[in-house]
């Protein structure tokens, strides 16, 4: 007559009645029936933490009415190692290599954000050549990140790896450049307070210049194959919409914010580094849906190519470190500073409080990936699980930064 309760099929699925002493410590049932007074009988599905489409150890608990999501709660902390506490127990320079592990796809920009904040705290100046090198590295990182993102997005749409490998082919070339320069493919540890660590050779610069020159060809090829694709349009247009007011209030930053049409790019607003010397435009979306978020990445890559071409043209000769900057025994004066820059994922900020000792008293990372997830539930409501995977992919998170 009636279906047996789920718990009778699998005793571990029930948390209440089975006298298992540590049931509360279990990760919880992956699927269970729940009752809601408005919707009636619903199904709660726990996706993750080990799920290929969650881009790492991320869990979302989605409540479904039929196929539609009526509630979605993200669960964090599976990659938490208390980065901030570790950084408070080491010297300022000591946490520079550790910032690589925050957003492990974009270590160059994360390094720069940290160096920028320490320079603001201690009043260190940076020589011209280092400023240009920083912009070159940051924009190459943006190419790496956005190429990865558009590749993974098609993977989330179910295209089974081919577009991802096209994107990874380009990413690999840039990562080889990083390895030649810094010694590591992804954990570059390249920036220092008051400059950069290594000066690239003329051969390196020439290779990079040729790579950047050829990059638009990859973009054209990629777009010709995929941007107008019918399935792609059907699956992304009008999916996961956000209004500009919602986005600003929820603190979304980066391409996700600009896809809603809010003109806020820190390269223009703050004008940090030497960005005011460069000519580039800030692409803006209109609908705030998944398709616009995808297009933002493509258009930003084209603008990055423009910035890189100008940087290779104008790169001055000279020192790459401020001669007055101290690496050993570095103790900034007591005080605090909040530094931020436009990372590939959004506003990446560091907040440092110094008490005059060699270690920061307080070290805080403002993670764009975490705060961009604030609206994940609002974006997913009314859509299916399959769409929620694509929406999550279009937000672009890295769990090393979300959980810290």
């Amino acid at each position, binding site marked *: 007559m009636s279906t047996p309760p789920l718990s009778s099929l699998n005793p571990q699925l029930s948390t209440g009645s089975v006298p298992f002493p*540590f049931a509360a410590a279990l990760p919880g049932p992956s699927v269970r029936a729940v009752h809601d007074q408005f919707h009636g009988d619903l199904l709660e599905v726990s996706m993750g933490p080990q799920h290929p489409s969650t881009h790492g150890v991320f869990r979302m608990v989605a409540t479904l009415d039929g196929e539609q999501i009526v509630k979605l709660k993200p669960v964090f902390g599976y990659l938490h190692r208390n980065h901030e506490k570790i950084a408070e127990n080491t010297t300022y320079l000591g946490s520079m290599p550790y910032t690589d592990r925050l957003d492990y796809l974009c270590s160059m920009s994360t390094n720069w954000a940290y160096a920028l904040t320490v320079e603001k705290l201690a*009043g260190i100046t940076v020589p011209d050549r280092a400023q240009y090198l920083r912009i070159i590295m940051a924009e190459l990182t943006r190419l790496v990140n956005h190429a990865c993102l558009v590749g993974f997005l098609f993977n989330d749409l179910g295209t089974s790896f081919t577009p991802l490998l096209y994107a990874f082919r380009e990413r690999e070339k840039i990562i080889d450049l990083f390895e030649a320069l810094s010694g590591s493919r992804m954990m570059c540890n390249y920036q220092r307070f008051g400059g950069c660590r290594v000066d690239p050779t003329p051969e390196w610069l020439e290779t990079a210049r040729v790579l950047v020159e050829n990059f638009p060809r990859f973009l054209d090829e990629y777009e010709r194959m995929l941007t107008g694709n019918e399935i792609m349009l059907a699956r992304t247009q009008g999916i996961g919409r956000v209004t500009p007011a919602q986005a600003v209030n929820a603190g979304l930053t980066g391409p996700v914010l600009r896809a809603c049409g809010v003109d806020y790019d820190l390269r223009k607003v703050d004008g940090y580094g030497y960005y005011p010397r460069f000519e580039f435009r800030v692409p803006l979306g209109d609908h705030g849906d998944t398709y616009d978020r995808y297009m933002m990445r493509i258009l930003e890559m084209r603008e990055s190519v423009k910035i890189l071409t100008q940087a290779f043209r104008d790169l001055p000769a000279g020192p790459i470190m401020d001669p007055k900057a101290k690496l050993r025994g570095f103790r900034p004066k007591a005080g605090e500073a909040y530094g931020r820059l436009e990372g590939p994922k959004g506003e990446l900020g560091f907040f440092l409080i110094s008490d005059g000792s060699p270690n920061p008293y307080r070290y805080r990372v403002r993670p764009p990936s975490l705060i961009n997830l604030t609206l994940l539930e609002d974006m997913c409501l009314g859509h299916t699980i399959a769409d929620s995977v694509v929406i999550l992919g279009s937000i672009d998170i890295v769990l090393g930064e979300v*959980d810290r």
Partner: protein
Amino acid sequence: METVEQLRDRLLARFPAAKIELVTNPSAAAEHSLLIDAAHGRDIALFLRDDPTLRLDYCSNVTGIDWPDKEITDITKTTVADPAGASGATKVVEQKTTRIQPGYLEAVYHLYSMALKHGPVILRLRTANRSDAVTLPSFTPVWRSCDFQEREIYDLYGIIFECHPDLRRLLMWYEFKDHPMRKDYVEPDDYEWEPTAHGAILEKAKANRLTSAPIAGDAATPGPGSAPPATKSSNTEAKP
């Protein structure tokens, strides 16, 4: 944009009952902040967001800070008549007194305006102490970007944000007891230890061994007293 001093004066004119102090920042960044009291926190936040000349519509960063109790030594110098010297000679006596300056937890908000593209305005709120009065007003109803960040501060520092819609731990697991970012947090000896099912089964097996009838090989020996001689004799038999 107006300076922090001008902003403080304007806020004091608008909220005469509020306590607003300027906290100076001596570092090279020189971004000063406003310390506001918790009772007027929400009103001030709403004012800052909606005021047409400020329009701070974007709360970028929320930071928790722990300031533990601090022991401060005061040295007071008093001049007394020198008993050994001639009349009129004086001696300076130093008197040291130590007092405990009570600690507090602090939340720092970095506000910017996306509409007018200026900022930052930095707000600070402090709790009364670090143990039982750790409540601050939540700014999540004003800026939704505070949602996860305030949850994180609740998790790692233990500040309770009043009127937060969903104040749960964000990074640590729900059964975790302490607040690990506090300065006096003591790490456990063994992070890996947890009450696993494996451990529970071992415990259960131990309990059975004590209470139930002797098992397996013990069945051959009738009592505990006779067991040692039996093994002894078997040993002696095996020797030659």
